């Protein structure tokens, strides 16, 4: 190794305000870092991530000819990109940067033991420096992104996303499993807030979608296979019995949700006058409601169950839907009595709360029941329905006669979503809905690049919220397509051809289908598909597979440093 290539490591230890500095003795960590092999410079910062801190890194790279940088601060999950680009701006390949997490792993978890936290921080820095000395520059190859998208699901979310992408001048393939577009919108009666019939809005949407030259609609179609990666997906769909292949740069999942059928609850399925809110909408739409004199609605049927493995989530829309439908019944049949039995009226925001108050003023009766003491529904000998409920606000048990009981049941994930999640290799959350990359700041992204989610497929939400998310997904999908190219992951696996014995272990184990055998039987890694998980490298019996940026030598150096060696 000549003098120029010799590692010259700079170490920056962050106070993170008081997050690290009030527990860990930062100056001591800096002094320790200065004694470590290959370290040419070390300093402390109040916030290394501030503009000032980043400038200091860049200055030090130039002033001290640093060729490796270690920042000891918080989590790489949020801050690594920032520090990496500071290195790049100072002319250093960004993979010559390494981060030591002394906040989450030291000051936060050992807040009551400052001495031990400081010692651990020093060890963490020693490990990072040991690895940094062996870091090598890596490249992120660029690939082209096709300006076309596959949108899966032709409900209001999918149609909105398709229209936005089409307006952004991308080609869109809209896939709908049913014969017609519209999804759940087809079954609804009137829509909040203007009491417009859903059919009017649906017709406008379908017409805009079908007349848009950038959108190709495939109804009666299901997705059979997805190959490829961001920029170059190939979706095989079954379109009216024939297989068709579609090429796309991005994919949006807008498959919506089903409504829970509460079989066996509150006489549902036994008495035909016990129905769900969605069935009520259909009856009103088809003018088949008859003339009910007394309607009782029950909220949280099969939702907010508060038990292990139960449907514990709140379905968000049911309270507002019940209020809307109660007002509709009152309008159609002013003499009808309508009661809503609820646990909490979750009419959040501005308009729903307004409607709730309107319903209260309109003689809709609101009766609050307790989770531990739910209502009981029984069929009377004369065939009518009777609902017994303990009203906690007046502390009395009431018996209500009803000729119609309407159950507010939650939105639930479709049965076939599991299959789609496997095809796309994107996860579902505990409650069955598609799981986004970050619940707070990446609500419509998947962790997998180039695939996005919107609408009720993500979680129960209103039409307006689904539409907002659909536009969001169209924005996110539009970014790589507008640029026309994307940088790919540099931390990938690579195969030493001389060592590969064509056993195929890696091919079977790769969760991303990124490894195939070539004509000679040698394992080949597709760099774009590879996510750098390391499963292949760990399981290769011949040690023929190594990971970029996580080579055996680098990992061993870290481990040796952790054990006190050098």
């Amino acid at each position, binding site marked *: 190794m000549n003098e120029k290539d010799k590692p010259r490591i700079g170490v920056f230890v962050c106070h993170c305000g008081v997050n690290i500095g*009030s527990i860990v003795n930062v100056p001591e960590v800096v002094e320790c870092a200065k004694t470590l092999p290959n370290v040419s410079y070390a300093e402390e910062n109040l916030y290394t991530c501030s*503009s000032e801190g980043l400038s200091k890194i860049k200055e030090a790279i130039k002033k001290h000819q640093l060729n490796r940088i270690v920042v000891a601060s918080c989590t790489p999950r949020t801050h690594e990109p920032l520090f990496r680009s500071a290195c790049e701006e100072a002319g250093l390949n960004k993979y010559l940067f390494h981060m030591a997490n002394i906040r989450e792993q030291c000051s936060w978890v050992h807040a009551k033991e400052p001495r031990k936290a400081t010692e651990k921080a020093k060890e963490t820095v020693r490990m990072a420096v040991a690895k940094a000395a062996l870091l090598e520059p890596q490249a992120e190859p660029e690939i082209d992104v096709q300006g076309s998208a596959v949108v899966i699901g032709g409900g209001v979310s999918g149609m909105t996303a398709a229209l*936005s992408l089409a307006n952004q001048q991308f080609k869109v393939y809209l896939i709908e499993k049913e014969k017609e577009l519209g999804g759940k919108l087809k079954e609804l009666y009137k829509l909040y807030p203007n009491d417009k019939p859903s059919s009017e809005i649906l017709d406008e949407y379908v017409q805009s979608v079908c007349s848009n030259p950038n959108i190709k609609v495939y109804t009666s179609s299901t997705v059979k296979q997805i190959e490829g990666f961001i920029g170059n997906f190939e979706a095989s769909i079954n379109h009216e019995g024939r297989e068709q292949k579609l090429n796309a740069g991005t994919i949006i999942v807008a498959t919506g949700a089903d409504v829970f059928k509460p079989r066996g609850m509150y006489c549902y399925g036994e008495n035909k006058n016990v129905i769900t809110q969605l069935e009520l909408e259909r009856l009103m739409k088809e003018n088949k409601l008859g003339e009910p004199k007394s309607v009782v609605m029950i909220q949280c049927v099969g939702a907010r169950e508060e038990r292990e493995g139960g449907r514990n989530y709140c379905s968000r829309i049911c309270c507002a839907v019940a209020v809307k439908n109660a007002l509709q019944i009152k309008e159609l049949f002013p003499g009808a009595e309508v009661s809503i039995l609820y646990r909490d009226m979750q009419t959040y925001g501005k308009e729903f709360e307004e409607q709730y108050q309107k319903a209260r003023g309109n003689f809709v009766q609101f009766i609050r029941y307790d989770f531990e003491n739910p209502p009981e529904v029984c069929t009377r000998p004369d065939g009518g329905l009777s609902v017994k409920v303990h009203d906690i606000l007046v502390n009395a048990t009431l018996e209500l006669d009803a000729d119609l009981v309407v159950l507010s049941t939650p939105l639930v994930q479709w049965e076939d979503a599991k299959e789609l999640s496997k095809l796309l290799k994107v996860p579902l959350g505990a409650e069955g809905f598609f799981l986004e990359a970050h619940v707070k*700041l990446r609500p*419509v992204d998947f962790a997998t690049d180039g695939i996005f989610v919107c609408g009720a497929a*993500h979680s129960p939400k209103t039409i307006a919220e689904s539409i907002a998310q659909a536009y969001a997904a169209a*924005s996110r999908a539009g970014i790589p397509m507008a640029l026309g190219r994307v940088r790919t992951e540099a931390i990938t696996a690579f195969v030493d051809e001389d060592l590969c014995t064509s056993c195929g272990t890696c091919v079977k184990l790769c969760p991303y289908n990124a490894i195939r055998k070539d004509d000679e039987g040698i394992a080949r890694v597709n760099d774009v598909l590879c996510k750098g998980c390391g499963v292949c490298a760990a399981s290769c019996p011949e040690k023929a597979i190594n990971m970029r940026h996580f080579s055996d030598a680098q990992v061993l150096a870290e481990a040796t440093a952790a054990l006190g060696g050098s």
Partner: protein
Amino acid sequence: MSKSVLVVGGGIAGIQASLDLANRGTKVHLVEKTPSIGGRMAQLDKTFPTLDCSICILAPKMIECFRHPNVNLLTYSELGEVKGQAGNFTVKILKKPRYVDAVKCTGCGTCIEKCPIKVPSEFDMGLGNRKAVYMPFKQAVPLVAAIDPERCLYFTKGVCKICQKVCPSNAINYEQKPEEIELNVSSIILATGFDVFDPSRMSEYGYGRFKNVVHSMEFERIICASGPTDGHLVRPSDGKEPKSVVFVQCVGSRSQHGDFPFCSSVCCVYATKESILIREHAPETQVYIMYIDMRAVGKGFQEFVDRAKKEYGVKYIKAHPGGITEDPTTKNLQIHYEDMKTGEMKTLDADMVVLCPALIPKADNKKLARAMNLEVDEFGFFKSKNLLTAPMDTNVPGIYICGYCQCPKDIPESVAQASGAAARAAETIACATKEAKR
């Protein structure tokens, strides 16, 4: 025809809209009224339901905005006159003088250290102090000081000039004048966020009279490690750790007689989060949340409330207190309420009360609306063109809205709407470009 977009408001919604557009190659001008972007999210300690550190997940995005070659960051600036139509708006931006040269200032903080004048910090909700020359908070973006001319001794009395003497970069410039910048943009995205209702208007709760009655934004700063108490859970009257804390929901919101009948949508769950934080900071402290209806409607929120009850022992009481009284000697509080479950009148003693006030649209919205011929509702929320099908569109083509200024919503919803507004702006540019090619 312009291909750039103006974003008004540098909170999480404005930041997200800006980054989505900038990342697709669109030039963005991001205007923020205060000296730093970050908005309300920067003030929060943790976020629900994941308990992520708020500034930690926000700061990378703030800095990305600052460093992005397609983002022109205009902090300490306000939107003035707006003319034109979609595809071609001419807007005037008033850039207030910082009296600090933004190019020369390195953010070292020497001037701040030496400045003799203490001013209540807006960022810390007045619970801590800043100086007359200041940076709003430690992670401020840009990290450039500003002089508050209303409090600076030089501007008020013509003396001092210490900051100028100590600045190692010679960045202090008392002669700086307001600047007017004219921009040509294709679309405008408004993301002005919210204000906190002043709970002293509900005198029965004693806010402003009783030291240990605080509101939830103040509490976020108290519990935050970078806040005025360094994250120690203490009550204002004596700096001691409270042994019992009561949260009161719907203070000024859901009011049938007051100004704000709407529900702010986030309070039930942030109170749950703040309760969990109390139990983590001080496991002996009892926490109660008094609520009318528990509204935990977002993804994972109900599960979060269940966890607060079962794992953290937070006690939820269905009640809307009638009043709060104070023991003048101990400064302890008594909360008087009717237990909705039993109808009994009860009193609960507490060392500290956190009020959850209505979150209301910015007072400025009405002025902005006039400048752009936009419709606002009676509270000052910008009106959507169609609440159902076009939530981010306004009555003026090419002007879009997102985040809390459209109606109450939480962070993920604001982020989604912000990306959505960016899509609408991108559509406007793409359609105009296509037309121009014809």
